[in-house]
């Protein structure tokens, strides 16, 4: 393991796979490669990126209203996701498309929110992957509460590997500044909850560079609340996997929370609606594009002989198939019905709301009739 000093402070940056694709697996942070399906990691990196680029294309074609791209953050997400067990619960932001895919959420269902057909898109309990949360920081407290439930279910430190459960909450560097996030840290620390906070420090919150939020590395925030923080190279899928695995294990065994800072970079603009050229230099972006997380893993697999050309071309085929599925699936997403806003607003729909729903339904129907008759 290499500890790389960064300009932002003297926090060690843990790395297992150097940018040139060489693995250094033993250090403060370590990983036993026999326990890792490195080819699956690579495949998921590729599929995640493909999902992202297809979604961008769909947005350009007018099929999606908006898309928050994860380009550059694939390793952070795939690494973290591969550390999860089925019973663990994930609380994403709105950018964890890679985690969603690894978790087994149908990628098509990720599109509905951005197509405007739904406010959600999947059942959080299906794959233990919560809905996207758009209000910055809010999900960190849900993760804490869920973890309190896990503790009360005696699903921590029981020693039963199928039972012990951790919670993985994602957040961005910007989210570190919301009061709610910091409350989540406090609750997690005082109750030693089985929750891991995975902060993708992609160095930007829309147009705000990380220095707007903090003078010191994000990982150090945790010490101020009394729990461990660790900084990993977020473009190194092995380091992300290793750090998350360690943290989740400690959480499941009753060792309390961890904050992981995965230092990475948002290569694209904030969303397809954003224009990054207004606030950052192309040179900066290019520099980070040079630290591409996929290339690194590709080199590693090739050089170490862990994958052959057949494997790579098979992954490419899977990627093409995914793209095709997304293109068709997106357009086939069901249009929401007129009464959808009224449904599920309450478990028991109040009479007054039922009345509004009927009026609205009848009105829309009459409009359609009158349009049809014109």
């Amino acid at each position, binding site marked *: 393991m290499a500890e790389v000093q960064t300009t932002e402070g003297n926090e060690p940056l843990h790395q297992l796979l150097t940018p040139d694709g060489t693995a250094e697996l033993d250090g403060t942070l370590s990983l036993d490669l026999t326990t890792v399906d490195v080819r699956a990691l690579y495949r998921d990196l590729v599929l995640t990126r493909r999902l992202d680029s297809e979604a961008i294309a769909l947005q350009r074609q007018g099929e999606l209203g908006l898309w928050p791209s994860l380009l550059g953050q694939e390793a952070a997400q795939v690494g973290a996701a591969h550390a999860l067990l089925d019973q663990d*619960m994930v609380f994403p932001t709105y950018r964890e498309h890679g985690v969603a895919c690894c978790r087994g959420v149908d990628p098509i269902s990720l599109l509905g929110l951005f197509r405007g057909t*739904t*406010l*959600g898109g999947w*059942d*959080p*309990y299906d794959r233990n992957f*919560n*809905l996207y*949360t758009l*209000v910055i920081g*809010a999900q*960190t*407290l*849900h*993760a*804490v*509460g*869920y*973890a*309190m*439930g*896990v*503790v*009360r*279910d005696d699903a921590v430190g029981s020693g039963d590997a199928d039972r012990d459960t951790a919670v993985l909450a994602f957040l961005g560097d910007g989210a570190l500044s919301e*009061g*709610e996030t910091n*409350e*989540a840290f*406090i*609750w997690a620390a*005082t109750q030693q909850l089985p929750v891991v906070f995975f902060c993708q420090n992609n160095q930007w919150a829309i147009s705000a560079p990380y220095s707007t939020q903090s003078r010191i590395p994000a990982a150090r925030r945790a010490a101020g609340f009394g729990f461990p923080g660790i900084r990993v190279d977020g473009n190194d899928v092995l380091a992300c996997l290793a750090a998350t695995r360690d943290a989740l294990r400690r959480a499941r065994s009753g060792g309390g929370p961890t904050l992981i800072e995965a230092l990475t970079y948002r290569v694209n603009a904030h969303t397809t609606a954003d224009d990054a050229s207004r606030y950052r230099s192309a040179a900066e972006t290019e520099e980070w594009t040079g630290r591409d997380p996929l290339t690194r893993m590709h080199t590693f697999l090739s050089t170490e002989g862990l994958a052959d050309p057949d494997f790579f071309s098979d992954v490419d085929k899977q990627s093409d198939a995914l793209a095709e599925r997304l293109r068709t699936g997106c357009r086939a997403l069901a249009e929401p019905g007129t009464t959808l806003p009224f*449904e*599920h*607003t*309450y*478990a*028991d729909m*109040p*009479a*007054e*709301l039922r009345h509004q729903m009927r009026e609205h339904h009848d009105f829309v129907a009459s409009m359609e009739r009158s349009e049809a008759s014109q």
Partner: protein
Amino acid sequence: MMLSMVKALNDGMRRALESDRRVLLIGEDIGRLGGVFRTTDGLQKDFGEDRVVDSPLGEAGIVGSAIGLAMRGYRPVCEIQFDGFVYPAVNQIITQLAKIRHRSAGAVCLPVVIRIPFGGGIGSIEHHSESPETYFAHTAGLKVVTCSTPQDAHTMIRQAIASDDPTIFLEPKRRYWAKGDVTDAPDLALDKARIVRSGNDITFIAYGPTVDTTLQAAEAAEAQGHSVEVIDLRSLSPVDTETVVDSVRRTGRALVIHEASLSHGMGAEITARIQHEAFYFLEAPVLRITGYDTPYPPSRLEHDWLPNVERILSATDRSFRY
């Protein structure tokens, strides 16, 4: 049995804790202290620190973690210490608690109750006497209820905990210590208003802390020859419009009485519904007797600032002058 509202709430929560292990209480000072009003007195001793949770000092944390607990299958009952301290939790309440069932198309159920002692009249300092009901009643996805008697407190808190919808449970703190008979059988659904006094000439509509004042005013008005019907709304969202409108169609006159500020208070919505549903029946405009459009005053002024019997009577006169 004769119980104060505090005791009735305490007993209601105790039963909920007994009958469902997924129920838990969370809030500031609710455990060892039993809450600043002693509403949760003894519950931590009997149900343990895991089920009656003394939380860190953070309202966003209380509601946010309750959401997470509910996602895990629990039925958390939060206590906000005073009305004026609910605001740090408003983001979690409005953008998350109220919307997650809907957002998830029903997949995620959030049976969270948020108990808030509310209203004035106890001689307290700033932020301890407010009436925030509009903020919640205007928010789709929340139920908002309030009780005016120990009996309703006892029944409604259990109904609220049993409800699968997030519910803001407003407790009229100045009625906390008045005693009343409490029996066990729920006689009315949580979302129904109650006609607490029948009459023919005018309808008084109140809820929570103003019900008692309103009943006193009704007595006094009766002495002046007016037959007054008094409705205790109980549910502020949804409102039991039918009960209200049926009454006003009979009486032709209505007053709405609440402590919250006039503008955008419950009175506005009730008035708008009445004038819509009982347009041809109204003999006079619906009148509102409410707190004024000012911050809640220092306690030496609260008696005059709050709706009181005299103001209700004076408005009654005005109504009959139409």
